[in-house]
């Protein structure tokens, strides 16, 4: 009934002169490009503005000439940053923390995901759901009790953790491990069971099945999880801000904000250069491994 009424209503439209559909489509395509370009401008203005400002001297910035163009581009800001020991310390701290956290995350989440997806044991289903739930607990809920816990730990054992860069090593995995385990469970679950049965028949033990079969087959998932863990640890801002204060213990995001901004004197050219260099590692990874990056992004909500 409704179908019939739709056809009768649509019928006059379809009697237009031939070729109109393809012309409509061409116009739709043009409008699509137009609006896409608008959105692309909106999305790319801040990074472009970072680049423009980072190429300017302080004198040019304060001259209040056209802010959208660098008339005398210079690499001075970058050179100054890359020769300043302080900025290099931030970079080193960030790199160390991120790489160690990635390694720890993979060592914890890959075996756990393997066990949870293939070796059913008492409570394994509940545990998998629990892992997913912990991923939903934001760090903004945990930083205050964690801060107090680490302070108490210092009182009891005399081991100073707060205000050392390595305090971030136990903290970041709470953000990365649940999600990486969750993605890996999804990838492992999609591997056909015949594969591990065949390996079992050939006399392989669980370690061999994991290392020789599962990890090679689920390599795309593994790369996606690694990228996720790295970008999260590289970008994390709240934990380092709360837990580290000394200039030589800071990681990049906090370091740029607390050390390059001195009182009210904002050296914006240098800040933008620092920000651009700090954003470079995730951007490079994204540029070269875009498909894995996107796979990891969409896996979180669609797998399961």
């Amino acid at each position: 009934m409704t179908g019939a009424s739709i056809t009768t209503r649509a019928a006059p439209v379809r009697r237009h002169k031939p070729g109109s559909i393809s012309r409509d489509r061409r116009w739709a395509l043009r409008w699509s490009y137009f609006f896409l370009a608008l959105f692309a401008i909106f999305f790319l203005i801040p990074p472009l503005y970072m680049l423009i400002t980072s190429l300017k001297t302080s004198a040019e910035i304060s001259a209040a000439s056209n802010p959208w163009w660098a008339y005398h581009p210079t690499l001075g800001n970058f050179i100054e940053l890359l020769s300043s020991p302080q900025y290099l310390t931030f970079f080193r701290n960030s790199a160390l923390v991120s790489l160690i956290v990635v390694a720890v995350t993979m060592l914890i989440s890959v075996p756990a995901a393997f066990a949870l997806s293939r070796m059913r044991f008492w409570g394994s289903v509940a545990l998998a759901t629990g892992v997913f739930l912990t991923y939903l607990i934001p760090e903004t809920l945990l930083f205050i009790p964690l801060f107090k816990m680490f302070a108490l730990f210092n009182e009891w054992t005399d081991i100073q953790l707060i205000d050392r860069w390595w305090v971030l090593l136990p903290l970041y995995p709470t953000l990365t491990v649940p999600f990486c385990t969750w993605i890996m469970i999804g990838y492992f679950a999609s591997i056909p069971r015949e594969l591990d049965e065949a390996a079992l028949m050939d006399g392989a033990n669980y370690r061999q099945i994991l290392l020789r079969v599962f990890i090679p087959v689920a390599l795309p998932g593994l790369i996606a999880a690694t990228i996720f863990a790295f970008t999260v640890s590289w970008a994390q801002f709240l934990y380092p801000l709360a837990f580290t204060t000394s200039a030589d213990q800071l990681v990049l995001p906090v370091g740029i904000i607390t050390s390059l901004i001195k009182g009210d004197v904002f050296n914006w050219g240098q800040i933008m250069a620092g920000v651009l260099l700090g954003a470079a590692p995730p951007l490079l990874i994204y540029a070269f491994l875009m498909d894995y990056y996107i796979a990891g992004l969409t896996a979180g909500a669609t797998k399961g």
Partner: protein
Amino acid sequence: MVDAALAARSVIGRARLLSRWRKAMQRRSTIAFLMTLPLIVLVAVLVLYPAFYSIHLATLNKSMERFVGFGNFLFLFKRETFWMVVRQSCIFAITAVVFKALIGFIVAHLVHNVPSKGQRKWRGMLLVPWVIPPAMSCLAWLWLFDPSYSAFNWLLAKLGIGPIAWIGDAYWARFCVILVNVWIGAPFFMIMYLAALKSVPEQLYEAAAIDGANWWQRMWYVTLPMMRNIMAITALFSLIVTFANFDIVRILTAGGPIDRTHVFATWAFWIGIQGNDIPLGASVSLFMVPILTVAAIFILRDVHRRASEMS
């Protein structure tokens, strides 16, 4: 004699125990448990314990020596700033998620319309805001909103519009915070919606076209029902992340002017870490729990349903 017998028996007992232990270690469930043990320890010690510890902390007084029960919460209820933070957090999260979803939806359709060999390039460009660490891009926005050198104000001045105090004025500051959040989050929605759009079978559109459905009808009866699940779950995820957001407000306005942009996370940081009142800060952050729980329940229901559909 007796000693020797005892010793022999204990050796046998030890050996038996050892072999039983070995057997247990070779059992599948034991291996599996050991493989998940680091995960369990990590989650128990650094996620679950602090979560409950924060409830305990919230019942102490400022010097953490005396139990005050609900004292901290009652104190918060009496403060006007607290209610302002509640209101701002809700406005902030809901507005930002709605606009992220809207822009993500539109951009996903635009990208989907373009011939498929160009799609990769557009998608790559449009995801850049999500890839840059938020702390870094917020600094760029802060510089764009600078009171005296704002590049936006320079453009507006060319159009003859007076300078806007982006960060200085309470309403503009709220607008800026939401704008930056939308800017960071919309690409994520775009990617999710694009994946959902690609999963709609082409035959459905063909069938709809044969039935003479127009653009709106195709959208309403084919696209939206097919995307409903992903749209809902993406929005819920984003609601959690946005509601608990810290970086953007902290860097752009630090809660100012006069607390007009504080959200739960930044206010809790302000009170708990900077103001050194850990119990009160913990109480503030606990107010995020109800909304997070509701969102989590909905997400979990969807995850369960999909898991049961799969098996």
